[in-house]
C-alpha cells in the first residue's frame, strides 16, 4: 500500500489543495415540501373541562379580528422539516468548519462549545426578564462581573450591555453625545460628528440617524486619518469624534491621542469604535488614549458566535462623566445584592428591549474567565503574530499588496489589494473570492466605497494554526496563479459550492424581485 500522507504537500513543500466539495443538496423551497394536512408538531390542547367552561372563544372574538383565511404556511411532517434544515445547514460554511480568516474585521475566532452549553441551560434560557430581582441574582452577578471586566479592559467607568450589536452601540454613543450636549444647552450648535473614511459604515450612518451631520476624514498618504484635515474640520460645531484604531487597514495610529485632545479642546466627545479590540487586549486602552466612550462587540473579541448575523451585543462604555446618560437600567451591586437601577432621569432611555442579549454576555463572560488577564493578552499577541505572518506570505504572492505604511507591522488585520493582478489579468478581487470558496473558505473584499482598489481583508485571529494559515495562503496563491494561467476557471467559479453563478439582475428589478415565496409565486404567474 502506498503511503497516502506523502501527497499532502507539493514539491515546494507547500500544502496541496484540498479536494473539497461543499455539500450540495439542491434543496427545494420549503413551501414545495408541503403536503396537505401533514403536521410538524402537535399543540397541547386545553382540557375538555376548561374548554367547556369558556365555550366558543373563536366566536367570541370581535368579528373584524377573526382571521378568515388560515395563513398559507407549508404543512410538513417533523422529519422532513428537520431534514430540510439540516441539509441547508450543510450548505452554510460556519466558522466551526473553515479556516475563517477571510472575513476580515469580523474577528472569526473560535466560539467554545462549553459556552453554548452554559447559555442554553434552563437556568439561564428559561429566565423571564421581569422576574423579581431576588430570583435572578445569578444572572445579574454575571452581568455585573462582566461589566467589571470590561471596565478594566477599557479603563472606562461604566458599561451598558444593552445594545443589540456594534451598530446599536455606535448609535447609542451618538445618542449619548447628543444628550450630553443637549443637557449643556449646546444641542443646536453642535451638530457634526467627525469620522474617518476607513471607519465602519455604521460610524457615520448611526451618527446620521441620531441627527448629526457627518464629516469624513480622508486617509493621508500613509493610510492614517489625515490630521491636517481633522484640524480643518474640527470646530465648535463638532459634537463628537468617532474613531477606530487600528482601522480596517490594521495600522495602529500612533497619533490617536492628538485627535482626542484636539476634539476635547473644541468641546467634543470622543468615541472609540472598538468593535474589534482583539489585537490590543491588555496592551492599550480607551482610557489612556483619552476617549469618553467606546464599545466592544462581544461577537468578535469576546468569542460569542455570529449566528448567521446575530444576535449580538455591543457593550457600550463611558467615563464617569457620562454614566448618567447610559440606557436604563444598569446593574448595581451593594455588596450583597444585585439589582437593576431604573432611576436614571438623564438616561437616553431604551436602546433595545429589556437588558440586551444576555446569552451573549454569559458566553463572553465565560471566555474572559477562561483566559484571565494573561490569557487575553496572549490571545491578542498571537492574533497579531498570525496577522503579520499572513501578511508576509500574502504579499509574497505576485499581484497582491498591502497598501500603506510599508514596512510597518499591522495589528490584527490587513486590507490588501489585487490592483496589480487585476491590471495584469482582468480578474477582480471578487472573482478571486468566489474561487476561494471552491476550497472551503470565506473571503471578503471591503465595505463600500472601495478606497483601496480591488481590496480584500484578512484577519486571522488567534484561533488558527500555522498549518491552517498556510493552507489559506495556498488557496489564495492558487487563485492568483489561475488568474494568469487558467482565468476561465476563476471566472466560472464557484464549481464546488452548493450552487453556481447567481444572476444579479432580478434582485434590483422591481418587476422581478421576490423577497418572499408569495411574491415570487405572483410574479411567476404573470
Amino acid at each position, binding site marked *: 500500500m502506498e503511503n497516502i500522507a506523502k501527497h499532502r504537500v507539493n514539491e515546494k513543500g507547500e500544502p496541496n489543495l484540498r479536494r473539497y466539495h461543499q455539500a450540495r443538496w*439542491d434543496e427545494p*423551497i*420549503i413551501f414545495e415540501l408541503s403536503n396537505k394536512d401533514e403536521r*410538524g*408538531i402537535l399543540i397541547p390542547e*386545553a382540557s375538555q373541562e*376548561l374548554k367547556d367552561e*369558556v365555550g366558543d372563544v373563536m366566536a367570541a*372574538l*370581535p368579528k*373584524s379580528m377573526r*382571521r378568515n383565511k*388560515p*395563513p398559507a404556511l*407549508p404543512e410538513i411532517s*417533523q422529519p422532513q*422539516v428537520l431534514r430540510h*434544515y439540516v441539509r441547508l*445547514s450543510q450548505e*452554510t460554511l460556519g466558522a466551526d*468548519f473553515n479556516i475563517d480568516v477571510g472575513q476580515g474585521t469580523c474577528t472569526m475566532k473560535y466560539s467554545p462549545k462549553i459556552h453554548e452549553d452554559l447559555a442554553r441551560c434552563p437556568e439561564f434560557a428559561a429566565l*423571564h426578564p421581569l422576574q423579581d430581582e431576588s430570583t435572578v441574582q445569578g444572572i445579574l452577578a454575571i452581568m455585573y462581573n462582566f461589566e467589571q471586566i470590561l471596565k*478594566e479592559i477599557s479603563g472606562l467607568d461604566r458599561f451598558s450591555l444593552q445594545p*443589540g*450589536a*456594534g451598530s*446599536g452601540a455606535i448609535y447609542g454613543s451618538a445618542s449619548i453625545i447628543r444628550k450630553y450636549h443637549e443637557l449643556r444647552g449646546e444641542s443646536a450648535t453642535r451638530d457634526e460628528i467627525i469620522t474617518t473614511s476607513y471607519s465602519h459604515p*455604521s460610524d457615520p450612518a448611526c451618527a446620521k440617524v441620531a441627527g448629526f451631520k457627518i464629516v469624513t476624514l480622508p486617509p493621508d498618504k500613509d493610510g492614517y486619518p489625515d490630521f491636517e484635515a481633522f484640524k480643518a474640520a474640527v470646530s465648535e460645531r463638532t459634537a463628537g469624534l468617532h474613531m477606530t484604531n487600528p482601522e480596517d487597514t490594521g495600522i495602529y*495610529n500612533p497619533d490617536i491621542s492628538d485627535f482626542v485632545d484636539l476634539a476635547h479642546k473644541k468641546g467634543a466627545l470622543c468615541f472609540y469604535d472598538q468593535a474589534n479590540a482583539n489585537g490590543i*487586549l*491588555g*496592551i*492599550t486602552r480607551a482610557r489612556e488614549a483619552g476617549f469618553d466612550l467606546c464599545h466592544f462587540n462581544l461577537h468578535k473579541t469576546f468569542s460569542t458566535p*455570529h449566528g*448567521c448575523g446575530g444576535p*449580538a451585543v455591543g457593550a457600550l462604555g463611558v467615563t464617569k462623566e457620562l454614566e448618567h446618560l447610559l440606557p*436604563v437600567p444598569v446593574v448595581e451591586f451593594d455588596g450583597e445584592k444585585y439589582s437593576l437601577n431604573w432611576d436614571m432621569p438623564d438616561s437616553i*432611555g431604551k436602546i433595545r*428591549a429589556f*437588558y440586551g442579549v444576555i446569552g451573549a454576555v454569559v458566553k463572553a463572560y465565560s471566555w474572559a*474567565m*477562561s483566559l*484571565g488577564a494573561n490569557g487575553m493578552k*496572549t490571545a491578542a*499577541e*498571537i492574533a*497579531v503574530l498570525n496577522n*503579520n505572518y499572513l501578511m508576509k506570505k500574502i504579499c509574497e504572492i505576485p499581484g497582491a499588496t498591502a497598501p500603506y505604511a510599508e514596512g510597518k*507591522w499591522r*495589528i490584527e488585520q490587513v486590507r490588501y489589494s489585487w490592483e496589480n493582478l487585476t491590471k495584469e489579468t482582468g480578474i477582480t478581487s471578487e472573482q478571486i473570492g*468566489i474561487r476561494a*470558496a471552491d476550497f472551503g473558505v470565506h473571503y471578503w473584499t471591503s*465595505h463600500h466605497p472601495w478606497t483601496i482598489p480591488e481590496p480584500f481583508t484578512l484577519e486571522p485571529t488567534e484561533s488558527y494554526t500555522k498549518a491552517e494559515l498556510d493552507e489559506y495562503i495556498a488557496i489564495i496563491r492558487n487563485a492568483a496563479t489561475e488568474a494568469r494561467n487558467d482565468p476561465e476557471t476563476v471566472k466560472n467559479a464557484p464549481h464546488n459550492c*452548493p450552487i453556481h453563478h447567481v444572476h*444579479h439582475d432580478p*434582485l434590483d428589478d422591481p418587476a422581478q424581485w421576490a*423577497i*418572499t415565496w*408569495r*411574491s415570487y409565486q405572483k410574479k411567476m404567474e404573470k
Partner: protein
Amino acid sequence: MSKEIVYPYIPNSAPDVKAAMLKDLGVSSVEEFYEDVPEKLRLKRTMDLPAPHLSEHELKKHVMGLLKKNSDCTEFSSFLGGGCYQHHVPAICDEVNRRGEFLTAYAGEPYDDHGRFQTLWEYASMMGELLNMDVVNIPTYDWTQAAATSCRMAARMNGRNEILVASTVGPDRHSKILDYCKPELRIKTLDRDHKTGQIDLDALQQAISENTAAIYFENPSYLGIIEDMGQEISRIARDNGAECIVGVDPISLGVLTPPADYGATIVCGDVQTLGIHMQYGGGNGGIIATHDDERYIKEYPSRLFGISTTDVKGEYGFGDVLYDRTSFGAREEGKEFVGTASALWGLTAGVYMALMGPKGMQEIGEGILQRVNYAILKLSELPGVKAPAFSSSHFKEFVVNFDDTGRTVAEINKALREKRIFGGSDLSQIFPELGNSALFCVTEIQNKEDIDQLVNAIAEIVK
C-alpha cells in the same frame, strides 16, 4: 502558574511554533509588533482581572454555580409576559440553531453560505404568509428597533414629522421610539377609551393632521387588548395621508386578523414567541413588513434577500435586494444603518413556522384564547380582584386590578413566589393610572391545573 500555559483556544501559543513564526518574520518577540503604540498609551501593568478558571471543568462549575442561583420558569409557574413570552420551544428549533454551520456562520457569500440565504429567505416567506404581506426583512434587533425604524421609514416616505402612538404601546418600545425618532420626529400619545382600553377614535381624529407621518399601535396591545377598530384607524390614517403602522405578536396570527387585512401599511413585531427561549429577554428579533411596493422597499434599512436564477437551470440562488440602499452600500447616505442583527432567531422562527403550519398556528391561537378566558373567568370570581380591567377581548395577556384587595401587587407577588409562582408583572410604575394592577400572561403551556393553582393561591393571599 509559573510554567507557560498553552491555551486550548490559541494554537500558536505553543512555544515552538510561535518561535518558528517569529523567526520567519525576523522578529524576536511579539512586543515588536506593537512598536507603533506610543509609550504613553501603553497599559504598563497586567490587567487587574479575576484569576481565570483555566480548565473547562472549573469554568463550568463557576458559571453554573452562578446560574444555579437563579430560579427559572421551569421551576416556577410563571404568568409573566409583557414583551417576553414563555411558549413551548420545539426541540428542533434548538437542534437547528445550535448546528455549528448556522451558529458560527456570519457574512459569507451566496455561494458558500447558500443555506443561510435560503433559510432566511424562507423565514421571510413564511412570516409573509402569517402577515399576509409580500416583503419581510431579515430581522433587526427586536420589536423596539423595528417599531422605531417603521416610524422613520414612514416619515422618510411622506416627509412629515409627527407620529401618533397609542397609549398602550409597550414601554420599551415607547422609550426606544422617543430616543430613536428624536432628531426628526415628534411623538404624541393617543388617548384610550377608559373602558375598553382601545384607541379613542375621536381623540385620533382630533390629533391627526397633515404633519402626521404615521399612527402606531399594537394589536394585541401591551395590555393584551385586541384592538378591533383597525379598519377605522387605518382609514383615518389613509384619509390624512399618513402611514398606518401596526405592531403584532405573530403567534396570535393563526386566529387574529393580520394587520395588513385591516389596512396597516407597515407591520412590525418580534419573533421571540416563535420557537425562541426567553433568555432573560435576549431572544428577540425585529420584524418589519410591507407590501411589495418600491416606495416602501427603498426605505428599509435591513437586509432584504431575494430569490434568483443561476447559470444552472432549475437551481435557486439568492442575493441582496437593493443592497445599495443600506449603510453597507452607502454609509451615511444609506437608510439608517445595518449590521449584525438577529439572524439566528429569524432562522429559528422559520423552523418554528414550518413545524407549526396553518393548523398549528390556529390551534395554538385558539388554545391561548381558551386559557386566557378561563384565567380571566376564574380570577374575576375572586373578591376584590378585577379581571380583566378592560372590557375588550384579550389575547394571551390581561390586566388584573387589585385595588379592592387592600394588597399591593408587590405583596401579592411576594406571597406567590413563596408558592413557586411568578405572578403578573407590576404595572404600577409604568401605567400608574391603572392603579394597583398587574399584567398576567397565559400561554399554551399552562393547563387548567396551573391556572387553578394560581387562582387558589391568589384567593388565599387576598382573603
